[in-house]
């Protein structure tokens, strides 16, 4: 698949650039195809290329020492990932995995650096992208550090139990996130933790409360 100029224009890094500049960038971009569930970047490894998603979706996540995953972001077409190590020279701060078949556009770190020197407009665009990334991560940090989200999720579950026929209000993770005042990623992690602790279990489209008392304790736990 040839790199399309129209697509390059849709990438925030390259917005507001002229045709000649886009042609130069196109020369530097290479394509990489990734299969479903394939690891694109492992956390802690040196970063050599900046990637943009051309098609498909990539999940960026961190893994704890106990093997628990926290999703940091979902990267859709036109968006980039692993920007930070490209610009600060450090290691990959998070891992990235393909959620389905994915085509990536890559650009080598050295080429990106040269581009920033030659095209200040790109540097300004990079600042905008990084600033919005910081804003998103700060909001996630706030949710994960200061809010007792797991207690709120437990409360939402208890408040929305279906009646004896099993039919009650049905909730998506997005709706639970809105109710708990947090991000969908944090609700996903909370539900997984409640499952690991034995308070709930998943049965396809059902969340089965297996230990109501435990949920109550989670709600009452100090934040």
């Amino acid at each position, binding site marked *: 698949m040839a790199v399309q100029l129209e697509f390059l224009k849709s990438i925030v890094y390259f917005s507001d650039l002229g045709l000649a500049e886009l042609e130069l960038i196109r020369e530097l971009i290479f394509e990489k195809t990734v299969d479903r569930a394939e690891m694109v970047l492992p956390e802690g490894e040196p970063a050599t290329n900046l990637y943009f998603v051309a098609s498909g979706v990539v999940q960026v996540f961190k893994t704890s020492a106990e093997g628990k995953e926290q999703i940091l972001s979902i990267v859709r077409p036109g968006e980039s990932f692993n920007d930070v190590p490209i610009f600060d020279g450090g290691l990959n701060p998070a891992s990235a995995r393909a959620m389905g078949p994915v085509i990536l556009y890559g650009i080598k770190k050295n080429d990106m650096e040269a581009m920033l020197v030659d095209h200040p407009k790109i540097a300004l665009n990079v600042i905008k992208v990084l600033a919005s990334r910081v804003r998103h991560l700060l909001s996630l940090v706030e949710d994960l550090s200061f809010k007792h989200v797991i207690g709120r999720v437990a409360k939402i579950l208890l408040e929305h139990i279906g009646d004896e026929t*099993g039919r009650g209000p049905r909730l998506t993770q997005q709706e639970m996130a809105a109710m708990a005042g947090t991000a969908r990623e944090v609700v996903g992690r909370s539900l997984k933790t409640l499952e690991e602790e034995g308070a709930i279990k998943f049965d396809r489209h059902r969340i089965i409360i297996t230990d109501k008392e435990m949920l109550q304790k989670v709600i009452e736990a100090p934040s």
Partner: protein
Amino acid sequence: MTEMPVINPDKCDGCGLCVGVCHNNALALVNNVITIIATVECDWCTDCEAVCLMGAISCPFEIIIQES
């Protein structure tokens, strides 16, 4: 009847991201609108819901208490 993710065709912009992330191949674009094609294959991973920016597909959970 097997419960399936709920699709709002009016919100679907036909981007197809959900088709790509469905590891059970339960979704397809038909006339540029997302459609469920394999009714028994969905395992409710909710990835389709997570990637949809338009909110066109949702995977709502029923919450029940385990019979003791």
